[in-house]
C-alpha cells in the first residue's frame, strides 16, 4: 500500500457522463426520422444531397483545423456532421450537388471557423450556408420539385407557404391539407416537409434534455398567437395558426435550428425573449414581408441579439438585492 504520492486534483471528482460528442450524436439520431421521411419522399436526390453536404462539411472542418493547428479530435465531435445534415435539410430537392457543396463550405468556413470554431460562432452555421445560397443562387434555391410520393406530372410547383403568399391560396381554397403537411407530402425543402417526423425527433431531444424546452415552446406560442389574431379577425384572408406551425421550415427551425446551443442564450430568461422574438418575426415576414418563408432570417436575426441577451438577463445572484 502506498503511503504517499496520491494524485492531486481539483474538485469535483465525479463528472456527468454527458459530453459534447454525445450531445451532437443525440441530435443526429433525433434527426433520423426526418431524414428517412425525406429520402422516402424525394428518393436518391435527397440521399445525394445529404451525403455531399456532410462530406463537404467534414472536409472543410478538417482543412480549417489543420490550418489553425488545432487538435484533430474535435473533427469527430459531431458538430460538422450536424451542420451538414441541417444544411442539407434546408435545401430544395432539385438543387445540384455542386451548389450543396459550396453551401457546406461556406457554412463551415464563414459560419463557424472564422469566428474560432465550435462554441464561438455568432450565427447558426447551417443557416449561414443557406442564406449564402439563397442570396447567390436565388433561382436554384426557390425551384421546388414535387415529392415522388405525390403523384402529379409537373416539374415544379409551389410550396404550401408560396401558394399562400403569391396565389391567394386561402381565398382560392387551394391550401395544402393539414394531413399532407403532417406527413410531408408537399413541396418544400428536403427535411422540413414532414412535420410529424421533425416533431418526433424534437420530442426525443426534449426527453434527453439536450435542447432547452423554452425555445421551441416560445416560438410555437408566439407564432400561433400572432397568426391567430389575424386568423380570428379575418379567417377568409389569413391561414390558421396550425397551418403556419406545420407549414414551411418552422418545425425544423423551432426544434433544431433555434435550439443550437452555441447560438442561443445561456440564461433562462434570455431563452424566452429569444424564442418569442423568433416566433414574432417569422409571423411578420410570412404575413407582411416579401418572402413566403421567414424562419431562416428570423433565427439569424435573433442570433445577433444573443450576446446582448446574455448580458442583460443575468440571473439575480442568491442574496443579491433587487435594484430599486
Amino acid at each position, binding site marked *: 500500500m502506498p503511503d504517499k504520492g496520491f494524485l492531486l486534483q481539483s474538485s*469535483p471528482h465525479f463528472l456527468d457522463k454527458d459530453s*459534447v460528442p454525445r450531445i451532437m450524436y443525440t441530435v443526429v439520431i433525433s434527426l433520423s426520422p426526418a431524414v428517412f421521411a425525406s429520402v422516402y419522399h424525394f428518393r436518391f436526390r435527397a440521399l445525394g444531397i445529404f451525403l455531399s453536404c456532410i462530406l463537404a462539411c467534414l472536409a472543410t472542418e478538417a482543412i480549417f483545423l489543420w490550418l489553425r493547428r488545432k487538435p484533430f479530435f474535435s473533427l469527430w465531435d459531431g458538430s460538422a456532421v450536424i451542420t451538414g445534415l441541417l444544411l442539407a435539410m434546408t435545401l430544395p430537392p432539385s438543387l445540384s450537388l455542386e451548389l450543396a457543396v459550396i453551401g457546406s463550405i461556406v457554412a463551415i468556413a464563414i459560419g463557424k471557423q472564422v469566428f474560432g470554431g465550435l462554441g464561438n460562432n455568432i450565427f447558426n452555421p447551417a443557416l449561414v450556408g443557406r442564406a449564402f445560397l439563397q442570396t447567390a443562387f436565388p433561382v436554384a434555391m426557390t425551384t421546388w420539385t414535387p415529392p415522388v410520393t405525390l403523384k402529379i406530372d409537373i416539374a415544379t410547383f409551389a410550396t404550401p407557404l408560396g401558394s399562400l403568399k403569391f396565389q391567394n391560396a386561402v381565398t382560392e381554397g387551394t391550401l395544402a391539407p393539414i394531413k399532407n403537411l403532417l406527413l410531408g407530402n408537399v413541396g418544400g425543402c428536403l427535411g422540413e416537409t414532414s412535420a410529424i417526423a421533425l416533431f418526433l425527433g424534437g420530442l426525443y431531444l426534449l426527453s434527453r434534455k439536450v435542447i432547452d424546452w423554452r425555445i421551441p415552446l416560445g416560438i410555437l406560442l408566439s407564432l400561433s398567437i400572432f397568426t391567430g389574431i389575424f386568423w380570428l379577425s379575418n379567417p377568409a384572408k389569413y391561414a390558421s395558426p396550425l397551418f403556419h406551425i406545420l407549414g414551411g421550415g418552422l418545425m425544423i427551425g423551432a426544434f433544431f435550428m433555434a435550439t443550437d446551443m452555441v447560438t442561443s442564450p445561456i440564461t433562462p430568461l434570455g431563452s424566452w425573449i429569444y424564442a418569442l422574438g423568433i416566433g414574432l418575426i417569422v409571423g411578420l415576414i410570412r404575413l407582411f414581408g416579401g418572402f413566403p418563408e421567414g424562419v431562416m432570417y428570423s433565427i439569424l436575426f435573433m442570433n445577433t441579439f444573443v450576446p446582448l441577451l446574455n448580458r442583460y438577463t443575468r*440571473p439575480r445572484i442568491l442574496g443579491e438585492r433587487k435594484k430599486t
Partner: protein
Amino acid sequence: LKDKAGILVMGGPMMGLTQWTMAVPVVKGTSGILAWEVPSIQKEHECIRCGRCVVRCPMSLMPTLLAKYAKFDKTTEAEAYGILDCVECGCCQYSCPAKISLVHWIRLGKNKITSLKREKRA
C-alpha cells in the same frame, strides 16, 4: 485500502480535497474519506454555451462566463458577475458536457482578485 488506490479525497466527492499523503489526521470536521483508482483524463472541448452550468448553479451565477473571465485576467468583469459569491460546490463542472475545469478556473480567478486587492492595500 487496496494497492490500486491512486487518489485520496478528504470530504465528499463534489467538494472534497485530495490529499497527497496518508499522514493527514482525521479531525472533527472530516466528513468522509474516499479513495479510488486514478481516473482517466477526459478530453476538454470548447465551451458550447449550452447553459447547463447557469441553470444548475445554486448561487445563480454564470460559471461559464466567470471561468472565461478568470482565464483572460478580466478581474473587474469577473467581480461584477459575482465570482466572489461562488461556493465551489462543483455542480457546474459536474454538468459540463465539454469537461471544462470550471471550478478550478473560478478558484484561480478568486485568487487573482484577492491578491490584487492585497497589493492595493499594501
